[in-house]
């Protein structure tokens, strides 16, 4: 074919970047020198990291093709058409290149395809590290679990740690190093910062500022010290929006120095929480606290009592035996009254319900000197923390239920002041080089500081952002260096008890990223340091005596440094005078709180967390203005109406959610929403409340105003109706509960109405006598604290799809296990109950009966198996399921295309397609794996086939920090689950329907104070 040189044709060099410039040998060599370890490259252009090559990598079409804006003439069109047709024909004849896949020549030890391996690593949130075990399938981490060797976890995790897995595979992560939006290589970056650093060297680093998030990594701290030694005038600033300034200031007030407070709830008979959501994710040590708390909630043993005084309903408040709902702003003076009653300081006299409550608490505390504990929440002013320390000391709790240690925070400064100094320096033009490591201060800094404006100004000559996302802050920086995720990098960090957990990578970095250690190494002039060497070298430096290699291997294997926990510290109380409490007037308070799902906004792009129902409201994908029913009624505000919240002249609009148990004259807003640059999931979800948050009102602000705007905004709550009393006034026995006294009188209160007899069924009963195992589950409602961890564990384990807000509004979320929250009693001071609901695996399963194609069948071990391949999607099973635990793929909910997600999925679980029903399987893949292991073992060791009780855990059970979920073989009378099912408190949900559920519940028993009950 005659091919004319047409004008339309892009120039050759535009198409093929390599043709434009000849390779710069010097650049290649420089690049080669800068890379470390074995790196694979496809061409010299790539090796040289040439911008043309980088561009080619990141653009779908070469230059020219995508920018072809000329009009196409008829002739030109026909010519191209002919050429395309000819080419299309030619491709049909093309022989595809032969691509060989080569198996391991030398099989790495222990790698067995199909058998996952587990590695210890750790996740860090706001400086507090959570030891983890990561499940790896052929080099891909697919699930994170708690490290059962570490006392802070004992196998449990919190939901942020669990969901961080999705964060690693997030396709919206920052993937490249870039300068003003143009992709650059690390070598270029290094060469570009060398100059400014050399200049600063001469100035003693006077113009360098490093802004980090809370740091607890000993290695990073050591690097910081080295950096400060090199640049003595440089400053290290720390800021996080969810900071612990109040806690540290409180400790300074009480002891004159910042200390870490640890609680031993296993020793506590009486717990008083002053708005401390110590059972909620994000509270340091919550995983261990949940376990200790749950252990003491056994009504057959010595059951503890929990009092909660709080200004916005939390999971901890829901689990309390007595909850006093007051405005957060009042808790300060209330604490002073409580302290005064306990002989600490002065406090105003109380009256009415509050007096009654405080008197009862005081009496109870006095009765349990040395075995009680008072915990203050991080939102409350320092005075409350100081008083809590003083009260704990006065009650003799220190050393028993309360232990003090050195702070976990490596740089325990007042973070707000730290940021304020930085902004002042930026304004004053004192900052030449600013390195922001993680965080997002442009979005989340207190509004009155004007951080973004200070950053934008040309006063700061060189701004470098190092982080996981190209977020709002990154946008205002010159250089963006993508960070490696913790699952891709080496590091360490301190757990809440001070012990050091080691962070091991589970996978090579997915993108061109650098860890924080590698960035800091650059500041001290080492541009090619590897994170591994830095972390290892630090520990080698510290190591004394013995074989370092063996010690290092053991520590990596265990995931933490043995014996590194901080010893208890004896800190004498030096409480002098307290600042005056904030004045309480009748205006409306605005409370800022971390979001229970997306924290401060850093998890905004995490679909698992966005779609996780918030513990109390069950809202997904949004924050809301939480308001008490009383206030809403008085102001004539309805749910989902948009209101303007006004504070000190600043105003934001948000939809109202009426929250039972919220105090009057106060609203609560959650931080972290309204992100402008978060990614596909987070951008635009919810509304941003940071513009209202100022340095002196970080958590509680008074003088707010709430006005209706007339708009309406659709919120999505996954729970239809939040009380067990139906609309016609019938109290359904869903969460069966009683008080401890009643329980002692009548232990079988939960099964007063016996379920229908076994024989009462049309079809014959199944016979399990031939099966060695019959699986069953028991969920202890007393232990469950509604933390939602099981949901995320299930999502990760079972490849559950994220469906998005629109689908959630329609009622199509896909969670196989949900945690229902019910409120009983008066809407302003209700009791709240949690109930996790997975599939009940009924004996007489209504779902099995109605499927026309037999896609859900009863297994020989008593499971209701769902056969995706056979399912045609009539949804009859779901209609007939009284528990509504079945989930349907109404559309193609799974993302089948994004390559990152393909890596993330658990290869042992089918990825469901459109049009099929799915539901909890009791983690049948884990059962099968345990069965195969047991069979192998029985053959190898020539003994009877037996799956050891406890050796097999479902994902929800494994992750549950409370140990509320017990799974096992009910055929074995000695198994834990069989014993629980024989317990008095055991009952089947809706057992009056004769479904005979395999999942049963341990009825809830509360331990109210008789003085307050009367």
């Amino acid at each position, binding site marked *: 074919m005659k091919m004319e040189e047409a004008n339309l044709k892009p120039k050759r060099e535009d198409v093929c970047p390599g043709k434009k410039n000849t390779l710069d040998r010097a650049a290649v060599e420089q690049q080669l020198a800068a890379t470390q370890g074995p790196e694979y490259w496809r061409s010299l252009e790539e090796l040289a990291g040439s911008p043309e090559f980088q561009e080619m990598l990141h653009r779908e079409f070469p230059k020219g093709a995508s920018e072809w804006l000329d009009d196409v003439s008829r002739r030109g069109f026909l010519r191209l058409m002919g050429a395309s047709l000819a080419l299309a024909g030619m491709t049909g004849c093309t022989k595809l290149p032969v691509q060989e896949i080569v198996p391991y020549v030398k099989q790495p030890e222990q790698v067995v395809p199909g058998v996952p391996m587990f590695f210890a690593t750790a996740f860090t949130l706001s400086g507090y590290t959570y030891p983890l075990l990561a499940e790896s399938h052929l080099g891909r981490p697919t699930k994170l679990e708690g490290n059962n060797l570490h006392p802070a976890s004992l196998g449990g995790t919190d939901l942020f740690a669990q969901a961080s897995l999705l964060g690693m595979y997030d396709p919206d992560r920052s993937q490249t190093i870039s300068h003003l939006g143009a992709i650059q290589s690390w070598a270029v970056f290094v060469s570009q910062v060398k100059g400014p650093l050399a200049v600063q060297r001469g100035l003693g680093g006077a113009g360098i500022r490093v802004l980090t998030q809370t740091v607890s990594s000993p290695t990073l701290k050591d690097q910081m010290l080295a950096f400060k030694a090199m640049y003595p005038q440089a400053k290290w600033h720390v800021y996080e929006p969810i900071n612990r300034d109040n806690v540290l200031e409180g400790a300074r007030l009480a002891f004159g120095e910042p200390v870490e407070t640890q609680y031993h709830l296993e020793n506590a008979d009486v717990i008083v929480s002053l708005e401390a959501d110590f059972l909620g994710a994000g509270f340091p040590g919550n995983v261990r606290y949940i376990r200790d708390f749950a252990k003491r909630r056994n009504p057959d043993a010595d059951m503890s009592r929990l009092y909660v005084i709080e200004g916005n309903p939390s999971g901890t408040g829901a689990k309390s035996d007595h909850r006093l709902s007051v405005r957060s702003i009042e808790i300060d003076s209330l604490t002073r009254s409580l302290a005064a009653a306990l002989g600490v300081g002065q406090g105003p006299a109380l009256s009415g319900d509050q007096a009654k409550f405080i008197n009862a608490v005081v009496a109870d505390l006095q009765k349990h000197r040395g075995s009680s504990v008072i915990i203050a929440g991080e939102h409350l002013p320092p005075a409350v923390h100081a008083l809590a320390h003083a009260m704990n000391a006065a009650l003799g709790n220190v050393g028993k239920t309360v232990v003090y240690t050195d702070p976990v925070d490596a740089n325990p400064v007042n973070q707000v002041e730290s940021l304020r100094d930085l902004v002042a320096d930026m304004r004053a033009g004192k900052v030449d080089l600013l390195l922001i490591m993680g965080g997002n201060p442009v979005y989340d800094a207190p509004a009155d500081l004007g951080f973004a404006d200070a950053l934008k100004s040309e006063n700061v000559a060189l701004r470098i952002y190092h982080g996981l996302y190209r977020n709002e802050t990154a946008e205002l920086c010159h250089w963006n260096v993508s960070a490696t995720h913790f699952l891709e990098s080496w590091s360490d960090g301190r757990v809440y008890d001070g012990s050091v957990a080691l962070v091991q990578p589970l996978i090579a970095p997915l993108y061109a990223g650098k860890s924080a250690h590698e960035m800091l190494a650059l500041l001290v002039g080492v541009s090619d340091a590897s994170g591994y060497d830095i972390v290892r070298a630090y520990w080698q430096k510290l190591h004394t005596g013995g074989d370092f290699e063996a010690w290092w291997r053991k520590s990596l294997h265990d995931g933490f440094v043995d014996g590194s926990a901080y010893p208890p510290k004896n800190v004498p109380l030096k409480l002098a005078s307290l600042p005056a409490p904030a004045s309480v007037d009748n205006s409306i308070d605005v409370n800022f709180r971390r979001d229970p799902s997306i924290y401060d906004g850093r998890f905004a792009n995490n679909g698992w967390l966005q779609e996780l129902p918030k513990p109390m409201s069950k809202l997904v994908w949004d924050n809301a203005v939480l308001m008490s029913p009383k206030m809403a009624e008085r102001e004539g505000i309805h749910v989902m109406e948009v209101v303007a919240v006004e504070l000190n002249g600043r105003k934001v609009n948000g939809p109202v959610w009426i929250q039972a148990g919220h105090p009057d004259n106060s609203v609560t807003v959650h931080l972290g929403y309204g992100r402008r640059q978060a990614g596909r999931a987070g951008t635009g979800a919810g509304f941003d409340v940071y513009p209202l948050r100022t340095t002196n009102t970080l958590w509680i602000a008074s003088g707010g105003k709430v006005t209706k705007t007339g708009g309406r905004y659709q919120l999505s709550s996954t729970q239809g109706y939040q009380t067990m009393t139906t609309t*016609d006034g019938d109290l359904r026995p869903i969460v069966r509960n009683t008080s401890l006294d009643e329980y002692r009188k009548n232990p079988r209160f939960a099964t007063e109405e016996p379920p229908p007899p076994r024989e009462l069924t049309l079809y014959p009963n199944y016979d399990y006598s031939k099966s060695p195992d019959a699986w069953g589950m028991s969920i202890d409602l007393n232990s469950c604290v509604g933390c939602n961890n099981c949901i995320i564990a299930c999502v990760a384990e079972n490849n559950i799809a994220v469906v998005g807000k629109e689908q959630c509004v329609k009622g199509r979320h896909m969670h196989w296990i949900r945690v229902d929250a019910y409120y009983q009693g008066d809407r302003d001071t209700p009791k709240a109950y949690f109930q996790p609901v997975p599939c009940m695996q009924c004996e007489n399963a209504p779902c099995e009966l109605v499927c026309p194609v037999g896609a859900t069948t009863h297994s020989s071990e008593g499971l209701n198996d769902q056969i995706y391949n056979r399912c045609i999607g009539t949804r009859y099973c779901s209609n007939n399921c*009284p528990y509504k635990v079945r989930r349907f793929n109404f559309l193609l909910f799974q993302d089948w295309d994004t390559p990152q997600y393909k890596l993330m999925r658990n290869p042992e679980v089918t990825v469901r397609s459109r049009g099929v*029903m799915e539901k909890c399987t009791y983690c049948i893949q884990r059962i099968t794996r345990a069965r195969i292991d047991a069979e192998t073992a029985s053959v190898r060791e020539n003994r009877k086939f037996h799956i050891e009780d406890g050796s097999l855990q479902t994902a929800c059970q494994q992750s549950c920090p409370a140990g509320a979920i017990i799974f096992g073989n009910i055929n074995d009378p000695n198994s834990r689950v069989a014993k629980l099912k024989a317990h008095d408190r055991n009952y089947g949900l809706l057992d009056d329907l004769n479904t005979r559920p395999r999942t049963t519940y341990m009825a809830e028993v509360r331990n109210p104070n008789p003085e307050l009950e009367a």
Partner: protein
Amino acid sequence: MADHLEEVTVANKRSPVIEPGHTFASVTDKISSIVLTRPTSLGWFAGFGFTFLLTMMLLFALSYLFVKGVGIWGINIPIGWGFAIVNFVWWIGIGHAGTLISAILLLLRQSWRNSINRFAEAMTLFAVACAGIFPGVHTGRPWLDYWMFPYPNTMQYWPQFRSPLMWDVFAVSTYFTISLLFWFMGLIPDFGTLRDRAENKYARIIYGMLSMGWRGSARHWHRYESAYLLLAGLATPLVLSVHTVVSFDFAIAIVPGWHTTIFPPYFVAGAIYSGFAMVLMLAIPIRKIYGLEDFITDRHLQNSAKVMLATGWIVAYGYAIEAFMGWYGGNRYDATLLWNRLHGPYAFWYMSLLSCNILIPQFLWIRKLRNSPFWLFVLSSVILTGMWLERFVIIVVSLSRDFLNSSWGMYYPTKWDWMTFIGTIGMFLAAMFLFVRILPMISIFEMRTLLPEAEVKHQ
């Protein structure tokens, strides 16, 4: 057939089933001319064109459904069934009148049925066809629907016979087959007539093939009558069984509001109720447009109205028993269901249903209204709406609030739900338009038996 005459005589005292003055020839002429000689009116084209467009809308909605999935509808968890099943049950119910009129009234020797049975049967077929669309397309993976049929396969799969949906497959397909056969059987002598009278060559060939060699000999008639009676005998239990089985879809389930033993009779009565309403809604305009008042007389309209009145009361009894059992039965879930129907978010629709199905149809007691085609038409449309609402209340409202309060939900139909529903109405009407144009909508030979001439010869 002495009783026939008697019947006619008795009927004459009220109003006749066929107006006096007709002969064999005039009956044949009148009916066959609609198909053979009468020019097709513009109105027909307009009506057919419009309903055909609606049919195309249905196809569009279904195509989009196949591409995207059932998520384009408003269904969710807990409300797994929405418009699709509501429409299915509604259409199946409408499809009852035809067979009832043809078979049961034939066996009961209600010869007044002769003028309405043909198009009632056609209506049945089209309604069942409309109904048949829904179970097929409402599944998540409709391309695998054939798995519901028991057929030998290498996958060693077999349907699950305990499921009422499985029974549905048999009940509905059997009903459709028998209805089709019965309708076709009834058409054979008339095909013969049309073949003989057709002037167009192709029409003659087509009608000739369809008439299956009908010559009208005594032997033909003898065999024909026996076969027709036998088929009527076969079809009769089906009238009762189909909707009984459809009601099992609900009665077998444990959902409050579904799980009641009264469903089979109550569903059958409701089906006949809506079926007759549909017959009237079709008969009244047709007889007006085609000038068939002689054959479809006021007597027919009155009788249909009476049937509706009777079945309406059976349905009302069903509602009353449901409500009574909700209160008296002591089952907490039923009690809540009743409360929710009366006061819940769908209370308006439940009240509308009671008005449409019980309250408003009581006007049928008034003879004047029974004699007025206009008012009968209006009341029939009210009843059809009411019966649709009944299925909506049974299916959607029951599912919206069942056992666990946490899982309560709401159902909001989407535009695709509406397009599919309205599309099937379009398809049904388009098929009716075609039917009245190319087939004799009234049974010619059966009409002739109603003439005094026929009776005289018998004696």
